[in-house]
């Protein structure tokens, strides 16, 4: 040992796992690739442009915010890319170019950075921005006419009493936002996230099961599998349940809280879809449930080892 070499000293433990925030975000991006690819194939190059603008806006906004707020530039953790991608996937394929720009700025600046950056936001940035856009630009955000499809989304058709092709809905050959149409592509990504351990089943499955039960009871079709599957495959439910309700920052950290969170999501989405003016409701369900998280966490703190928690 050289005389001038000082040893590093720290509190235990002295080793760290290889997991990092950036790697987790990279897994989410990889998991979104099937959905992204399908969206581009399904809707054409315009979808690719919308996605690119959305991602670029989110990353740039975060860089500018960090510079202005004199914080360390944090885009290396890739969370802005995830937000941008999710926001883009929640846009209509032929969205005018200003929509992803406004949405990206709102998501990163207002929802994320003003609250203190990653980990501090109280609602999912992509969904916060989507809801902002739907309210501000309702016509543009719900215009799903594009080169490939004209006309209404499958959920709108169902409400109007029209026939829908269930197989097309599951594969994703329908109109809708870029990333929401293909149940299969979304599930491929979800399975990947489950396998690498980035997410677990609690929130998505509680959400989906609660939703099915709610719809079975209140939608007026009973437990009709054709109707229920079309409700699951239609709209943003799959994308929301697997990729946005599972967002770490805005879901409860406690296991019991995650069950409660999933149930609230299922009930809210059911209410919005059955009784609401819109046929959709996933985005609003998730951001409302996001706001309840601090309360949920407070009442669901686990029992510790030796006080009843040793088996859970």
């Amino acid at each position, binding site marked *: 040992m050289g005389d001038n070499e000082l040893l590093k*000293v720290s509190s235990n433990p*002295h080793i760290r796992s290889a997991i990092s925030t950036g790697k987790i975000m990279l897994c989410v991006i990889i998991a979104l690739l099937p959905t992204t690819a399908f969206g581009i194939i399904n809707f054409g190059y315009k979808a690719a442009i919308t996605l690119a603008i959305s991602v670029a806006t989110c990353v740039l906004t975060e860089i500018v915010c960090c510079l202005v707020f004199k914080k360390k530039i944090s885009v290396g953790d890739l969370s802005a890319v995830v937000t941008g991608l999710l926001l883009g996937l929640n846009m209509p394929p032929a969205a005018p170019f200003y929509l992803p720009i406004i949405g990206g700025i709102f998501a990163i600046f207002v929802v994320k950075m003003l609250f203190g950056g990653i980990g501090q936001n109280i609602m999912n940035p992509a969904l916060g921005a989507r809801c902002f856009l739907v309210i501000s630009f309702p016509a543009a955000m719900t215009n799903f006419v594009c080169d490939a499809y004209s006309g209404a989304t499958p959920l709108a058709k169902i409400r109007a009493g029209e026939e829908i092709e269930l197989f097309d809905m599951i594969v994703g050959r329908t109109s809708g936002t870029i990333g929401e149409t293909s149940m299969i592509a979304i599930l491929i990504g979800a399975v990947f996230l489950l396998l690498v351990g980035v997410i677990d089943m609690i929130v998505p499955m509680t959400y989906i099961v609660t939703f099915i039960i709610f719809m079975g009871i209140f939608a007026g079709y009973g437990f009709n599998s054709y109707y229920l599957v079309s409700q699951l495959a239609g709209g943003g439910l799959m994308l929301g349940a697997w990729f946005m309700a599972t967002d770490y920052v805005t879901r409860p950290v406690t296991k019991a809280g995650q069950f409660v969170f999933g149930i609230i999501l299922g009930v809210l989405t059911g209410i919005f879809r059955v009784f609401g003016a819109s046929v959709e409701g996933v985005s609003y369900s998730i951001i409302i449930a996001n706001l309840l998280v601090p309360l949920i966490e407070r009442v669901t703190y686990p029992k510790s080892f030796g006080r009843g928690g040793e088996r859970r």
Partner: protein
Amino acid sequence: MAKHSFMGGIHPYDGKELSKDRPIVDILPGKELVYPLSQHIGAPAKPIVAKGDTVLRGQMIAEAGGFVSAPIYASVSGKVTAIEPRRIVTGDMVMSIVIANDNKYEEVEYEETEDVSSLSKEVIIEKIRNAGVVGMGGAGFPTHVKLSPKEPDKIDYCIANCAECEPYLTSDYRRMVEEPEKLIEGLKIILSLFDNAKGILAVEDNKSDCIETLKKLTKDEPRILVKTLRTKYPQGSERQLIFATTKRAINCDMLPADAGCIVDNVDTIVAIYNAVRFGKPLMERIVTVTGDCIRKPQNFRVNIGMLYSELIGEAGGLRYDPVKIVSGGPMMGFGLIDVNVPTTKTASALLCLARDEVSEVEPSACINCGLCAQVCPGRVVPKILSDMAEHGDEEGFLKKEGMECCECGCCSYICPAKRHLTQNIKSMRKTILAKRKRK
């Protein structure tokens, strides 16, 4: 057979292959040995020698400072050169007896007992107490106190902690490979103190050879069972071990005896055997010297009081300059600022690492992933406790069961944002414990 385990825990790189096949080697200390008076939980020992006195190997140099305390013995013959504060592994200065080694190793006479079963319980405990035996797994709790619960009849299990779940450590493993009989005889001595107890040898399944040997050696012992534990850190943590082997759970306000259990680690049980059978005080222990910077990782039988710096030389020296040196395992050991500190009764390893994973990455914001709660063996939510600790919220910290933390380090290990969760929780716990003590 079902493997015994607990909820939570982690699977870090275990590094045991570096030293597990290296037999225990006896080494002789250098010129100077240092004996801190506080090598155990409880009152410091009181010196009974003075500067200039000549001492023999095995001679008591400091007596117990109370009931919860333990005497200290010279591990070499020589002359007391000083009684002064010296630096110990934690970085603190602690009053210590310094002995100059005369290299003669003249020993006192020990009082052997051929037939251990002829001894009364009181005599056995007295012998253990006299020998200065303390928990050698790291805590350093005086063993005679542990072996004197209020109601000895209510002890159902005496558990030998053979888990050795800390990465890199192989000292207990070598003991079990080379001297399993001593471990079993030691456990039988403990069992003789508790008429209604069964003995459990709890071994992780990465030491299957030990499981085989121990099973073979105990097949005619109706009171001793060998239980296989799943390899996972912190399987050897006292509360988790009791749960894994007996399905009984104790919280931080309880003692193992409250659940009818007594837990001792391998080296401690061998020390009990040596104390009762041969009348030998605790003055040696097995230390693993390892890490990627060590040229020849080894397991040494060390005379307690020997300096860590001498161990590095005995292990072939350094391959490259270490960035971090740890006394103990990487999960719960102490980072050293100086290697010229003495080995003590609780020194299980010296670990020299070429990388310091802690200072390599800056902590970033918590993303609320919940991994810390998933791995926490205490089943609390470290990220919430750490936030409360950072804000000085003592009330909230207590309400969220912050005192249940065993400081195992799993949360800091797993955290993707590389936050110092264990450190924050640990310092809050320290503050609260210090306040309780003052009251």
